[in-house]
């Protein structure tokens, strides 16, 4: 169990990351400058917080009230920064062995095991500058694991790789997670990477964790407009609650009533100002008229802009009469089957279960 509740004064900024997590991959996700890397460095002991507490399993790494401070070398954590921090003057074997403890035989055995685990056999005597990007990543991961670290801190380690290699390394990391019993904190600002890797996800913005939850919860039920925005929800509307029923809320948005089936455990009241969100890939295109689909959040709209991304099409819809403007993401196959290229006017349907209602807190600027 990793528990972090600290305050870090960093230059002019103050960060207050606070979360508790366990085995598996926890993704720290947020925009550049949000405080992800600083949080990771504080966990590694490379930055000393101003106050708070960091605890991993039975070890207290930092506790300001008890003046406890374990330096980075005493934490037995594996740390891989964005630039990997490979020692270019050492061979692959020396890089991995640098942090390994124990007698010579123990160290050699451990290095051999890690070389095998990370698929580096045959490269032991090579110097890092002669290795490919992917091989360097493996060396950095092997070195991070050489101290039998049970906590792995990874700061955008795959960002310098091309897409193919990045994909391969992500799968490699998932394999490591499953094979070794590790708590991994992974920093990224890449939404797809976050979605693929995260067991749990912390959305961090302006130095604070805005939402911490299981991945699907964060992606499907963001707690406010800012988190929805950061996690790539393209459709966020402002509205007012008109009716509240068991597990459902009606919200008036741009002149129409939307039945929203996702409330994130919140209770709302009539007249309350709220935000409503739906992911672009969750919107349906229907051939039938809105009247035929009564009670299903359907209205007529026309495509005003289209961006073909190859595997998907990004469509922007403008309502014919009442209703909000919409971004719709459509995979290439349904796009062709529906013949969207030749038909611009559609009935768009916002599935009730996918319409998520969030409290609006103007004080946070959300």
């Amino acid at each position, binding site marked *: 169990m990793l528990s972090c509740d600290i305050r870090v004064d960093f230059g002019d900024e103050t960060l207050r990351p606070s979360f508790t997590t366990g085995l598996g991959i926890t993704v720290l996700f947020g925009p550049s400058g949000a405080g992800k890397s600083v949080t990771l460095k504080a966990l590694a002991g*490379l930055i000393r917080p101003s106050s708070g507490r960091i605890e991993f399993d039975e070890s207290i790494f930092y506790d300001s009230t008890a003046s406890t401070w374990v330096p*980075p070398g005493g934490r037995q*954590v594996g740390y891989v920064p*964005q630039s*990997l*921090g490979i020692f270019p003057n050492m061979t692959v074997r020396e890089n991995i062995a*640098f942090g390994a403890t124990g007698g010579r035989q123990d160290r050699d055995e451990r290095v051999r095991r890690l070389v095998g685990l990370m698929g580096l056999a045959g490269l032991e005597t090579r110097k890092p500058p002669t290795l490919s990007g992917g091989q360097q990543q493996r060396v950095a991961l092997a070195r991070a694991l050489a101290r039998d670290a049970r906590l792995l801190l990874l700061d955008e380690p795959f960002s310098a790789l091309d897409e193919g290699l990045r994909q391969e390394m992500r799968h490699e990391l998932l394999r490591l997670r499953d094979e070794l019993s590790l708590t991994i904190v992974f920093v990224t600002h890449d939404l797809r990477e976050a979605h693929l890797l995260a067991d749990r996800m912390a959305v961090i913005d302006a130095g604070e964790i805005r939402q911490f939850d299981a991945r699907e919860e964060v992606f499907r039920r963001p707690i406010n407009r800012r988190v929805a925005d950061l996690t790539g929800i393209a459709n966020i509307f402002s509205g007012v609650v008109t009716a509240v029923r068991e597990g459902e809320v009606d919200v008036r948005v741009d002149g129409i009533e939307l039945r929203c089936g996702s409330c994130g455990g919140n209770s709302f009241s009539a007249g309350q100002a709220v935000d409503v969100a739906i992911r672009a890939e969750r919107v349906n295109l229907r051939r039938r008229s809105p009247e035929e689909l009564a009670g299903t959040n359907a209205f007529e709209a026309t495509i005003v802009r289209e961006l073909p991304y190859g595997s998907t099409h990004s469509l922007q819809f403008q309502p014919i009469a009442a209703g909000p403007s919409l971004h719709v993401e459509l995979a290439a196959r349904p796009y062709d089957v529906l013949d969207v290229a030749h038909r611009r006017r559609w009935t768009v349907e916002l599935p009730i279960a996918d319409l998520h209602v969030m409290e609006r807190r103007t004080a946070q600027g959300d």
Partner: protein
Amino acid sequence: MNFSDIDPTAFRLSLQVATTATLLCLVVGLPVTWWIWRSRPAWSRILSTLVLLPLVLPPTSIGYYLLFALGRQSAVGRFLIDDLGIRVVFTWPGAAIAAAVVSLPLFVRTAQGGFEQVEPDIVDVARTLGRRPTVILARVVIPLAWPSLLAATLLSFARAFGEFGATVIVAGNIPGETQTVPVAIYDAVQAGNDELANAIAFITLIFGFVVLAVTAVVLQRVR
């Protein structure tokens, strides 16, 4: 030019003083450079200013303060002389200490340039791997910064070899004991022996040229 009047002892002493001063620069300069590099900005600035001070002071001022610090007037001097039986003033080790103080800023500045080229992430990772700072310095930082450290060492050696103002005040001008090459030139000029001054100065010119050429060749090979 007549080289036969030159006393080779001055050259031997100068090499002895410069070599000792360079070793002192390495022993003191490396940890100081590490400290400046790894400290918080405020500490780093204070330490950096202290180390650079000899660069802007007249060498005679440095000599004057050292004479005071190493002589009987100060507690350190009294401890050295009375308790340890070590007399530094008016000896060649005194000259070496003076030359080291004057050369230290050059060493630290040049070495710092080398340290700063080492990626901070590399040192951060090394710190998380549980090795002591001395091991990180010896196995990671020095091997990566060594071209600059070599340049720093050669520059310090050349500076110590040519040091006059501070050494003459701390060690005096005793032929065969503390008279280094620059002092010998000064002595010859004062005595009106232009031919001797000219001959010694010519040798220093050749020496300086060789040191710079060797530095350039070594650095080129390394890079």
